[in-house]
């Protein structure tokens, strides 16, 4: 793991909102002019991005909840992708 990854505590920029949509039964990421429907456990992962947890902390929390899922490999890649989109900082 590279140094910046260890220190980075992902958080949503203030203009983005993570919310559950009870009408459609799905998690949403809401941005200016755009709504992203979050599939699978993406909403759960983003819910942990509160600016206090490191990537490692997020992976550990998820590994505890989903012991059989490949979180250690998939989650850092997912967070990195969202960072490049500008949806995490």
């Amino acid at each position: 793991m590279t140094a910046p990854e260890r220190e980075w505590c992902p958080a949503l920029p203030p203009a983005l909102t993570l919310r559950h949509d009870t009408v459609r039964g799905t998690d949403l990421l809401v941005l200016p002019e755009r709504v992203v429907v979050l599939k699978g456990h993406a909403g759960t992962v983003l819910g942990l991005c509160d600016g206090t947890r490191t990537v490692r902390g997020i992976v550990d929390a998820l590994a505890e909840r989903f012991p059989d899922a490949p979180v250690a490999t998939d989650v850092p890649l997912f967070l990195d992708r969202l960072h490049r989109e500008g949806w995490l900082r």
Partner: protein
Amino acid sequence: MTDASRPERPAPPWALLAELTHACPLHCPYCSNPLELARRSSELSTGEWADVLRQAGELGVVHTHLSGGEPLLRPDLADIVAAAEAAGIYTQLVTSGTALDEARLAALTAAGLRSVQLSVQHADARANDRIAGRPSSFAAKEQAAALVRRAGLPLGLNIVLHRDNLDAVGALIELGVAWGADRIELANTQFYGWGLLNRAALLPTRDQVTRAHEAVEDWRTRLAGQVELIWVVPDYFDGVAKPCMGGWGAVSLTVAPDGTVLPCPAAAALPDLAAPNVRDRSLAWIWERSPAFNRFRGTDWMTGPCRGCPRREEDFGGCRCQAYALTGDPARTDPACAFSPDHDLVRRLSEAGPAEPPPPYTYRRPGAAPVAPA
């Protein structure tokens, strides 16, 4: 109603355009408000808006644009933002930038406002003020942009393009970058309502449109990853119908200042629509059951070339208001589409070249437009 192509219950709406008032300090000749502007005395109260937003949230609305006219002319705007926030709806202010000051913006942000879109008429201050029909409006916009940036909110610039500013599209983009915009929407004028009334003055040449489009694509490469550029197509010139609001009654609804609910802001002009009102009916009934929202839902209503066209689920047959404005029949294929039997109406106009000298604007003002007798 059992109808194979139309589900019993339409999918819930994502977005609501709240036209809080039709009053506006500017007088843009292409305004998307109806020719017959709603009177201030007919406007929904704070409580009525709060109830509309609560119902909208329950119905599935996620996004709202608080627009007008000029929404800042509503002294209760922060209360309306708070009501949207309480309903779980993400709020975006669409403003001309006049009458925004630091205290007002702070109150709106505290109430939950998420983002601001600012209209700009031209990159040159004098030209901006001439098109807007109001002196010093450019200076007010520049100041508003700075306030929004300082408050840390995302800033979008909304620019309507026409004969008078298409040649300045590069300068407009540079202005947006200088003002710190995250997103610049360059929307070619749609010709209905005020735009249609002023078409002879606003319609550009094909050359202008081509050059502007090239400039935008060039800037898009340069600004990739920094500023999002949106180009809303000039349907008169492209021969391609634009998707009407993502489908009639499919994605979003518009609530006018007096509580009238429409599938699109321009639909007020359609005859016999019997537009429902939140003062008489629930928003759920209006969305799901009202004849107005079911009139052009899905594809069953389609005529002529749209009926068998493979693109009908993508562009929904184009704009109903444009079909009506140009042919007198809102169910016809949009004449902007090259397959439309009425396409000649549009082609002749786009090829004729603009009127010389350009006729003066009929500025948007209550009573300025001839309105058909009821």
